[in-house]
């Protein structure tokens, strides 16, 4: 099967949509047409650069280059988690928490996928390692940032309730039990919903990409199934770790609520 190569003109036609939308928003005085155009421009530049970076990586295929790329992805994703928190832990605590959680969940899950499921030769082949890690990191990042934000907010607004539960002799874990459950639930819901409707309501992006690139739909589906399970694993385990660590930061060794550590 032949694939259709897109020319710059084709990209331009697609970009017309954003320009038209920006003009419409301007007329409606929504005040977001500027950021829409900037975001569109950023996307073009970033993706073009990444295209070249990936081509270089794929041609070289050296493990240390893959490792550097993975580290960059992890660093940026951790920063993104931090940026989405309404109430952050002070200093490096928040960043460290996000990074270590992401590291434990997405790295471990991606390694598992590459070594046990995909088994490319060598296992770090960038064509497999980078996209898989990317998909898992971005989904895990969303779940973790959402979950952490919810939990710190819930504890902050309910700090007096938490303190009274502590005063009654409950442990820190019991005192925030309900909020932790809510936050895991809210972080996992999008993943579960997407899995439940996959294929019916939406064709997942990766699968669509593979099909557009000429792969057989049946094969594309197999990859998508593997990816979804890895995403679910990354999100779930990642959030469990994040909550555990967050609890350790918000309470001290005498199980006192230390909200002054938030800013």
């Amino acid at each position, binding site marked *: 099967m032949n694939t259709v190569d897109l020319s710059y003109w084709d990209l331009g036609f697609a970009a017309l949509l954003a320009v038209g939308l920006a003009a419409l928003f301007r007329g409606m005085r929504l005040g977001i047409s500027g950021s829409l155009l900037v975001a569109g421009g950023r996307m073009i530049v970033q993706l073009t650069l990444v295209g070249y970076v990936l081509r270089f990586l794929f041609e070289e295929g050296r493990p240390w280059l893959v490792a550097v790329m993975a580290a960059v992805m992890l660093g940026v994703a951790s920063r993104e988690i931090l940026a989405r928190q309404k109430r952050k832990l002070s200093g490096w605590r928040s960043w460290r928490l996000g990074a270590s959680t992401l590291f434990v969940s997405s790295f471990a899950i991606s390694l598992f996928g590459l070594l046990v499921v995909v088994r490319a030769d060598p296992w770090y082949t960038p064509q497999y390692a980078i996209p898989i890690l990317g998909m898992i990191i971005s989904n895990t990042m969303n779940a973790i940032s959402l979950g952490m934000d919810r939990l710190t907010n819930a504890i902050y607004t309910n700090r007096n309730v938490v*303190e*009274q539960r*502590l*005063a*009654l*002799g409950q442990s820190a874990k019991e005192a925030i039990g309900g909020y932790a459950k809510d936050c895991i639930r809210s972080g996992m819901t999008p993943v579960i919903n997407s899995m439940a409707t996959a294929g019916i309501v939406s064709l997942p992006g990766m699968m669509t990409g593979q099909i557009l690139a000429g792969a057989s739909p049946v094969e594309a589906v197999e990859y998508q199934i593997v990816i979804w399970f890895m995403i679910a694993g990354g999100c779930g385990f990642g959030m469990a770790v994040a909550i555990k660590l967050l609890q350790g930061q918000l309470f001290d060794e005498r199980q006192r*609520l*230390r909200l002054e550590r938030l800013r």
Partner: protein
Amino acid sequence: MLRVSELAFLDWERVSLEVAAGEALCIQGASGSGKSLLLRAVADLIPHEGEAYFEGKACSEFSPTEWRRLVSFLAAEALWWEDYVRDHFLGKVDAARLERLGLDPACLDWEVSRLSMGERQRLGLLRMLDQEPRVLLLDEPTSNLDERTSEAVEVLLLEYIEKRGACAVWVTHDGEQAKRIGKRVFRMKGKRLIESRRDEV
């Protein structure tokens, strides 16, 4: 029974206190003078220096949960986290106790949102007594109650203290109440805790 030694929190002066079994010690003072902070520091709910001892054993030798079950802090406004009142109690609630405080025994099956302020306060007290604490750190336990109910609460608490060999540190703004229940009355003023003479109360 409870000994507080050189307890320091925020920038308050160090506090030392001793409360014997069966005793209720009263603390008065303007709002914002740090009375609640003192109680919360004794309950080990806020960071502090110095040490509190229960029957000679230091707070740091207990696990935090053990300590707070023995040395229980009751906030002025009782807060609730489950939908129904009953779910906040460990086991069966003594109906006689509810009636003594003028509460409807059926209120355990109510939704928390239905409770009045006074009902919340009394149920909050019972919720704490449910844990059978030995030291009661009471922060204005009758602030939302009328005179008659206040007295019922006082009688119930003093009886509990006597029967269980417990003791209490009782914060109150009501001078009459302080006189009724406390042999010794202290006053928190200018970040210091000083003992008041009887005629000053």
